């Protein structure tokens, strides 16, 4: 009954509930993905000093979440780029060889 002993947030409650849904249910992905909270309604506008403060580079302190699916898609994309590059190189070599042979004749 004591609030301190109960589920602390609505997100925690939702995450408890999605465990009962099938693995591929879209609501699972929604609740298990990280959430970034917006500014509270009562928050005052940021002070000028805070607005003018330099932002850290995006790589500093930011966490990039890599899921198995996104990693696989990245790998496929990289492989596709390399395959195109190799094809282009092979074509260039063949053309150069043909041009060289023609010059020798």
């Amino acid at each position: 009954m004591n609030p301190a002993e109960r589920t602390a947030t609505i997100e925690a409650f939702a995450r408890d509930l999605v465990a009962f849904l099938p693995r591929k249910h879209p609501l699972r992905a929604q609740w298990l993905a990280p959430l970034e909270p917006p500014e509270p309604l009562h928050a005052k506008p940021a002070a000028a000093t805070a607005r003018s403060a330099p932002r850290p580079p995006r790589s500093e302190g930011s966490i990039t979440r890599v899921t198995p699916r996104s990693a696989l898609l990245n790998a496929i994309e990289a492989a596709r780029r390399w395959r195109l590059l190799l094809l282009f190189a092979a074509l260039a070599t063949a053309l150069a060889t043909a041009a060289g042979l023609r010059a020798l004749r």
Partner: protein
Amino acid sequence: MTDEGGPRRAPLPFGPGDVVAGRYRLEEAIGAGGMSAVVAATHLLLDERVALKFVLRAGERAAGATERLLREARITAKFGSPHVVRVLDAGIASSGHLFVVMELLRGEDLRQRLATTRRLPLATALEYTLEACDALAEAHSLGVVHRDVKPSNLYLAARTRDAREVIKVLDFGVSKISGSPSPGGDLTGSNVVGSPCYMAPEQFSASGRVDGRADVWSLAAVLFECLAGSPPYRARTLSEYGVVLGAGQRPPPLRALRGDVPGRSTTSSPGRSR
């Protein structure tokens, strides 16, 4: 969008065919309570059907209700969740009545649904609850606590594109914004804000200081009712509910009432942490 309690209802100041604010042609009334009424209308320029919520009185006599409706509209307009009814416009009619324009919902509320079906399939109950969680999570992140989550404030709206039902959380009129004073009006005539059977215990003693855990409790009580067919704690009045909670009774185990509920359920007691 919901009925509101009140001693006596003032007549609706407009009728079908009347045009409000030069652009909303009123059609039929779709809901009415003691202090407000909801009317279906068409935006004349956009040819779009909308819902207009009116405060039934004008001027000083309507100060409390007007403040509450305006507050609700301002809060609701901030949301981006698809599970909160969209506020499109607001204004004062030539008669002096405040009106708020909202998306027109088609469907029924969860109270009506449970009155006919009594219990919901497990997956459906979870989906509805999680959709309500989406709306409440956004509210909490904005510093807003709803404080009156109950089946009649969860609307099952039929989506236009595929007729799928989605939950819309209604009535942020008694919600609390952290860092700002709580609204003076309430649902019961006392300083307690909430509804029996769904209200968190701390709302009895400190309605103005509750946090998101109060909504977690209420939503868990709604989920319990969706699965078991009745809320975890039964009471007809707030004082009766207070006595039931004060006695420290535990609700009946959900699995005893509903065999298909998994054993590791969080809803054996509303909002209980594991």
